[in-house]
C-alpha cells in the first residue's frame, strides 16, 4: 500500500500553502504527478510549489505551451501539462525524460493521460478533488524518498 496523506483546502490560499510545503521539501529530481478535474486547482498547487522553491517568476498554466521551465529558485522547476495531448506518441515525443531524469523538480499536470512506462516507478501522486466547498488533496507516495517527504509534511 502506498503511503498517503490527505488535506482539506477551503480556499485557494490553503491549496497554495500545501504546494509551498511540497516545494520546500522537494529534492533534486523530485517528480510530482498531479491529477484532478479541470479547475480543481492543479496550477494553483504548482504556484505554491514554485513559491516553496523560492521562484520569483510568475507561474502560469502550461496547458498551451506544454512545458515551462523556471530557473531562479532553489532548484529548477519544470511545469508540464498533458491536457492537450491525446495519444501516447505525442506525449512521448515531448521528450519529458530530459526533465524527469534531470536535476530539477518536475510537476506534471494531467499525468493520468500518460501510459505506464513513461514515468519512473517512484513519484508523488497528488489527486485534487472538488468537494462541495473547497478541495481535497490526496498525496500518495511511491518510493522511499517520497515517503520521507510525506513524513516531513505536517
Amino acid at each position, binding site marked *: 500500500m502506498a503511503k498517503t496523506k490527505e488535506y482539506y483546502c477551503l480556499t485557494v490560499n490553503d491549496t497554495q500553502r500545501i504546494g509551498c510545503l511540497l516545494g520546500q521539501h522537494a529534492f533534486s529530481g523530485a517528480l510530482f504527478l498531479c491529477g484532478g478535474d479541470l479547475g480543481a486547482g492543479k496550477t494553483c498547487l504548482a504556484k505554491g510549489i514554485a513559491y516553496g522553491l523560492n521562484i520569483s517568476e510568475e507561474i502560469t498554466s502550461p496547458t498551451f505551451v506544454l512545458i515551462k521551465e523556471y530557473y531562479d529558485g532553489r532548484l529548477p522547476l519544470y511545469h508540464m501539462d498533458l491536457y492537450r495531448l*491525446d*495519444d501516447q506518441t505525442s506525449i512521448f515525443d515531448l521528450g519529458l*525524460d530530459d526533465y524527469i531524469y*534531470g536535476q530539477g523538480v518536475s510537476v506534471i499536470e494531467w499525468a493520468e*493521460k500518460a*501510459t505506464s*512506462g*513513461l*514515468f519512473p516507478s517512484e513519484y508523488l501522486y497528488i489527486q485534487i478533488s472538488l468537494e462541495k466547498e473547497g478541495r481535497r488533496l490526496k498525496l500518495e507516495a511511491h518510493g522511499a524518498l517520497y515517503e520521507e517527504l510525506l513524513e516531513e509534511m505536517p
Partner: protein
Amino acid sequence: MYLAIDNCTNFASVCLYDSNILYENTWLAKEQHTTTTLPTIEKAMLSLGRNFNELKGIVCAKGPGSFNGARAGMSLGIGLGMSLNIPVVFVSAMEENALPFKDSGLNIICLMDAGRGEIYTATYQSLNDRLTIIQEEHISTLNEILYKITCPTIFCGEYVNQTSTSIKEKLGSMAIIATFAQNIRRASFLIEAGLPKLQEAQDEVPAPLYLRKPPITLSNKTVGLPKQDN
C-alpha cells in the same frame, strides 16, 4: 567537405573535414543546442572562407543521451542534408566515444549518465584496429556493469569522470580509466566513424537511439498511472 554534429548530451561538438580536420569545436551547450550549434557552424564556415554548398555529406550522433538534444542535432543535420541534397548518416555517440581506443586491443565500455542512478552503456571490442560492438547500447547500473568485467577494460565517456573512484575500487588494475579530456565526445571522431558509411552512400532512415522508449500503442484512450511493482 563533410560536417559532423553531436548534440547528445550537455556537451555539443561540431567538426568540418576535407581530407583533414578544418575545424572542430566542443562546448558545454547545456540546454542551448538549438541556439548555439548552427551559429557555431556558420561562424566556422565564415572564418574558413567556405560555404555550405561545398558540403558533400553530414554525420550526426544519434544518441543515446538527451532525447531532446539528440533530436535537435539530428534535425539540424537532416534539414541541411535535405536542402543541400546530400546524404546524412547517423552514428552512435558511444562509438564516437570509444573510437579513439580502437587500436588498444582491449574491451572498451562507454558510460553516460542516464539520471536517477542509471547509466547508458555499450561495450566494444578492439580487434585488428577496428571496433566491434559486443554489447549494444542499453540502460544499466554501475554495479551491474562492473560485476560482469573479467578482463582488462577501458572505461570512457562523460560519466567516467564522476565514477572513476568506484570503478578503480572495484576492479583495480583491470580498469583503465580514460582521462577527462578523452571522456568528452569530439565530432572529429564522428567524422571518422561516419565517413565509410557516407562513402558507401548509405542514406539512412533517421531514428534517434532512444533507450527509454515505453511500449506505445497508438490509442486515444487514457490508461492510467504507472503501475507499482512494490
